[in-house]
């Protein structure tokens, strides 16, 4: 191979490609990390994917990784430079959650997923931008300004894990971690033309993940291809005694399910996901993808998910209700921003929270407080929790007839920055196809399946039942191996 050419393009590698090279000593973890830091220097002023870049720490970790490799202790993640969403606690590295209220917060411990990645020898390049407290679909709610879509810098990268997605699409990291409460991994993956997996609730530890909607939040990978998602899942998945909602269930080697065909697989297609208002280019791309899947041996059946239209109101009651409780901890006492110190305690709380939180976070705290307040609980939170049961049952019924369900990830390609900031309800519609998966607690992936005429990516969502990540990975991998959307790159 041409070593010099490869070194020039190191930032474009996937996890599995970089791993082969590191194993063969074609280059060192240090050289790989330097290549990524150089790439960040070049394109970050345009993309703004990161809130913090930890160059020095990254190079130290690279030296550690090179020692591991020299000692023959290489794992598939050893020496791989990653970006971490700024919602995951990283010991000694500022973790802001995209909020002014945590602007100077430096965690004293690592999230379990971060610790597991470190143990495997992975390298942290920095912390990725996000909508404040993961509330948003565009990164426009970040207190530190939006990230940009590498395919069109005037477009949103999606959200809330928008920095994690744009960093992968712009080759500013090899892969990244995000979190998904209502679509926050899959929708930005769709907007940026990459792969994003939301695992089953309980599959991955939430310890050290700053809580938003505790019954919905999950950590997952954003990657350049499906094999990389499987490799990261091998590290992320598993029981953690420090998260009592994580499930003690064996973790398979997800890469063993990556096969080139789909013989014996039945795909469910729900008419409720091809609604009025869906962009015609998105509909066309997803329907073409279904033909590809059929050609690979999959059978398709029509299924019904009749309560889909209620998912959005259910989510926007349950998630804000949980958030209003979770965010009560930001009171200016134990950590984070404080103002109004000369006043009484209640006045100090109010000043601190009102100045520290942005508009969307306050809107959701207000909604959630209202939905949980005396006299309204039954009509709002209680009702939403009951309809949530019906949404979950829809999926249970559907999976009696099929292995996976294929849908669009988002109703439209990425919209322009500023286009929807004045209308919260319009913004909420971006997650209409991803939210039901969180409410049901099941697994979903988004992978690229087309480019719109304006050259913005279109995403395909594959959904499977609880703890069936291997089925979404298998379906996504077979599709990917027979198409070339995942190798298309934005021109930056």
């Amino acid at each position: 191979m041409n070593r010099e050419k490869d070194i020039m393009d190191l930032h474009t590698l996937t996890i599995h490609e970089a791993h082969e090279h590191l194993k063969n000593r074609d280059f060192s973890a240090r050289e790989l990390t330097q290549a990524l830091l150089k790439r960040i220097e070049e394109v970050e002023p345009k993309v703004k994917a990161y809130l913090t870049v930890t160059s020095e720490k990254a190079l130290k970790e690279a030296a550690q990784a090179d020692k591991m490799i020299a000692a023959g202790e290489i794992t598939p993640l050893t020496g791989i430079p990653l970006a971490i969403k700024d919602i995951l606690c990283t010991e000694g590295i500022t973790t802001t959650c995209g909020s002014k209220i945590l602007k100077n917060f430096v965690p004293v411990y690592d999230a379990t997923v971060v610790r597991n990645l470190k143990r495997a020898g992975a390298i942290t390049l920095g912390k990725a931008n996000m909508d404040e407290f993961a509330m948003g679909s565009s990164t426009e709610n970040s207190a530190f300004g939006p990230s940009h879509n590498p395919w069109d810098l005037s477009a949103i990268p999606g959200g809330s894990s928008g920095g994690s997605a744009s960093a992968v699409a712009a080759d500013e990291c090899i892969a990244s971690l995000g979190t998904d409460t209502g679509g926050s991994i899959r929708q930005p993956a769709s907007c940026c033309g990459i792969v994003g997996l939301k695992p089953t609730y309980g599959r991955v530890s939430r310890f050290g993940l700053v809580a938003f909607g505790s019954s919905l939040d999950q950590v997952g990978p954003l990657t350049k291809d499906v094999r990389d998602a499987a490799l990261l899942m091998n590290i992320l998945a598993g029981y953690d005694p420090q998260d009592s909602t994580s499930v003690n269930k064996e973790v398979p080697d997800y890469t063993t399910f990556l096969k080139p065909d789909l013989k014996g697989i039945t795909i469910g297609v729900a008419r409720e996901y091809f609604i009025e208002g869906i962009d015609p280019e998105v509909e066309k791309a997803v329907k073409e993808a279904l033909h590809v899947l059929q050609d690979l041996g999959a059978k398709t059946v029509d299924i019904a998910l009749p309560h889909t239209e209620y998912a959005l109101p259910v989510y926007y009651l349950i998630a804000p209700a949980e958030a209003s409780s979770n965010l009560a901890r930001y009171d200016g006492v134990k950590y984070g921003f404080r103002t109004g110190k000369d006043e009484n305690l209640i006045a100090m709380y109010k000043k601190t929270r009102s100045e520290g939180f942005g508009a969307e976070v306050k809107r959701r705290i207000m909604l959630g407080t209202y939905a949980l307040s005396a006299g309204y609980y039954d009509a709002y939170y209680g009702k939403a929790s009951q309809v949530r049961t019906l949404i979950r049952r829809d999926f249970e019924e559907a999976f009696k007839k099929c292995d996976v369900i294929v849908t669009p990830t988002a109703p439209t390609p990425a919209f322009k920055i500023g286009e929807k900031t004045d209308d919260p309800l319009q913004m909420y519609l971006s997650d209409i196809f991803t939210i039901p998966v969180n409410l049901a607690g099941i697994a979903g992936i988004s992978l690229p399946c087309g480019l719109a005429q304006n050259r913005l990516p279109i995403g395909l969502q594959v959904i499977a039942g609880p703890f069936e990540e291997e089925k979404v990975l298998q379906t996504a991998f077979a599709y990917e191996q027979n198409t070339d959307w995942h190798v298309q790159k934005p021109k930056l």
Partner: protein
Amino acid sequence: MKITRDQVEHIAHLARLEFSEKEIEAFTRQMDNILTYFDKLKEVDTTSVEPTSHAIQVKNVFRDDEVKKSIALDLSLKNAPEKEGNFFRVPKIIE
């Protein structure tokens, strides 16, 4: 109107938030729109449907009551906006 200005002010107090006159007006309007949209849920018959608070079955997780290593005192105070000795400092509560 689903929600009044007075209610919005009351909710703000419960949530320990305060808003300018202009913000209260904007919130009242936006929350009214959103709550009207939520009325859609009234269409669904949920008679005798159990609520879901967690998508997977969760049960109480017990562990032995053993003393384990915890975060050291200086570290737990490290991010405090104000501290005094080994304490978080807050405005005077008791007159």
